[in-house]
C-alpha cells in the first residue's frame, strides 16, 4: 500500500509543472556547484540546491590571533552571514554546528598554531539552508586544499503530517512539515556527524530519516566526486 502510494507520487512529480521542478517525494533538487570563483580567499565554492544558494570562502591555514591560538591543532572558525540584517542567535547556533562538523573531519593537528576560517554567505534561502551551508563549506575546504580525513555532506529530511518523508525540502515543504531533521554525514562510513531537528517524531521515524539521508548522501558524494573529476580533468 505504502509503496503504491509512493509510486503514484513519483509519477505526478515527473509530470509536475516547471515552476516546481521536483516531486514531493524522495528526490533531491537539482544541484550545482562552482569552485574557486573568488580571487581573495584560498578556497571558495558556491553551492546551489534548487533555489537555495550559499557561497563559502575559506582562508587558511593562516596566521592566528594569539588569544585564539591552540598549541596542538589549527583553530577553526566558521562565520555565517545572513542575507538580510545582522547575524543573530540562530546564526550563532548554526555557526557552531557547522564548525563542530568541520572540526570532526579536518586534520587540524597537521597545522598547529594556525587558523582556518570558513565564511559562509547566504545568497538565497529556499529551504534546507543548513544542509546547503554544510555542502558549500565542504566544497570550499576541498578547494582550499585543507587536509581532511573524510568529506561530509548535509541532508535535510521533512516529515509531513501523514508521516511521509521528503528529502531536501523547499521552504514551503518545511513550513507544512510536522518535523524537519538535518543531518551531516561523513563519506567513509556514512556515520552521523551532526544532527539538529525541529518538531516531534518517533524513534522509528528518526531511523527512517537517517537511512534515507544515508541513501541521499551517496548521491551527494557522487556529485562531489564528479565535480572534482571535472575540475582536475586538465592538468
Amino acid at each position: 500500500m505504502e509503496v503504491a502510494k509512493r509510486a503514484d507520487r513519483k509519477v505526478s512529480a515527473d509530470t509536475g509543472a516547471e515552476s516546481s521542478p521536483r516531486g514531493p517525494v524522495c528526490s533531491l533538487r537539482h544541484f550545482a556547484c562552482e569552485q574557486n570563483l573568488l580571487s581573495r580567499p584560498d578556497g571558495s565554492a558556491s553551492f546551489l540546491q534548487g533555489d537555495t544558494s550559499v557561497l563559502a570562502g575559506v582562508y587558511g591555514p593562516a596566521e592566528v590571533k594569539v588569544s585564539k591560538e591552540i598549541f596542538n591543532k589549527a583553530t577553526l572558525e566558521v562565520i555565517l552571514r545572513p542575507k538580510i540584517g545582522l547575524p543573530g542567535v540562530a546564526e550563532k547556533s548554526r555557526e557552531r554546528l557547522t564548525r563542530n562538523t568541520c572540526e570532526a573531519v579536518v586534520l587540524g593537528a597537521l597545522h598547529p598554531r594556525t587558523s582556518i576560517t570558513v565564511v559562509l554567505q547566504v545568497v538565497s534561502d529556499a529551504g534546507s539552508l543548513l544542509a546547503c551551508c554544510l555542502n558549500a563549506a565542504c566544497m570550499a575546504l576541498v578547494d582550499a586544499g585543507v587536509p581532511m580525513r573524510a568529506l561530509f555532506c548535509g541532508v535535510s529530511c521533512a516529515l509531513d503530517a501523514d508521516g511521509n518523508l521528503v528529502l531536501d525540502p523547499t521552504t514551503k515543504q518545511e513550513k507544512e512539515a510536522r518535523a524537519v531533521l538535518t543531518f551531516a554525514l561523513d563519506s567513509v562510513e556514512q556515520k552521523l556527524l551532526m544532527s539538529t531537528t525541529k518538531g516531534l517524531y518517533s524513534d522509528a521515524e528518526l531511523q527512517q530519516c537517517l537511512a534515507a539521508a544515508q541513501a541521499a548522501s551517496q548521491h551527494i558524494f557522487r556529485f562531489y566526486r564528479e565535480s572534482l573529476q571535472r575540475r582536475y580533468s586538465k592538468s
Partner: protein
Amino acid sequence: MRPHVPPVPADTLLAVVKSWRTVEPLEYYRRFLKENCRPDGRELGEFRTTTVNIGSISTADGSALVKQGNTTVICGIKAEFAAPPLDAPDRGYVVPNVDLPPLCSSRFRTGPPGEEAQVTSQFIADVLENSQIIKKEDLCISPGKLAWVLYCDLICLDYDGNILDACTFALLAALKNVQLPEVTINEETALAEVNLKKKSYLNVRANPVATSFAVFDDTLLIVDPTGEEEHLSTGTLTIVMDEEGKLCCLHKPGGSGLTGAKLQDCMSRAVSRHKEVSRLLDEVIQSVTHK
C-alpha cells in the same frame, strides 16, 4: 641483585596520580574507561545525583533549582502583560534566556553573552518550540489586546558539564511551579483586573527530558559528562524526549560520527532517564501541593 626500593607511601602515590591527571588527562581517562568506570566512581551509563528544589525564589511566579552533580542551574519565571503579536492575536509569548555568568566557570567572561550562552539559549528555545510544553494560546487573556509573556531566565551557578540537561529540567520544573492570577477585563474601563487570590497552575502539556552523552575516542559513549569529560570527549549528543517516547530534539553538534544502532542505544537510555526524572518531578510537586 636488584637494589632495594622502599614501597611508595600512599600520599605520594596519590600526589603522583593527581599530577598524572593534570599532565595526561586523556590517557588518565582512557585507563578508567577501559575498566568500564569513570574517575568519579560512576559507571559509564550512570547519572550524577540529581537534586531539584522548586519554588526556590519567592519573588518569581515560578522557579526551580536543579543540581546535577556540581552543575547547578536556577530557573526563575516572571509573567508580565503585553500586547499579543500582530500576526497571531490569540497567542502569548515565552521568552527563554540562558545566562552563563563568570561566576559559574572561569571559562566565561563578563559582558555580552558568549557563544556558549547563545547556543544554549537557542537550544532551550528549540525545545520549548518543538515539544509544545506550553501552548501559546493558553497565555492569551483577551485576543488582540492582552496576553501573558513568560520570561524564563535560566542562570547557571556552577558549570560542571551537561548544562543542557540541567537547563531543560530546571525549565520544566519551574514551568510546573508557575501560578498565574486570574485576569478579567473590565468592560467599562477596558482595563485588566488582576485577582491575586485566585491563582491557577499553567497547563504544562508535555514533559520533555534531556539526556546527554559524550563520545570518547570515537567509540565509547558515556552518560551525563562532567565539565572535564566534555572537554576531553570527541563529541556530544543530547536527546530530548517527551513522555510518549517522542523525540523533540536530537541535538548532535558535530564531533565523532555515530551509527544508527548507537543512536538507538542512546535512545533506550533516554527512555529510562525520562522515567527517573518524571518520577522525581512528580514526587516533588506532590510534596508541595499536599502541604
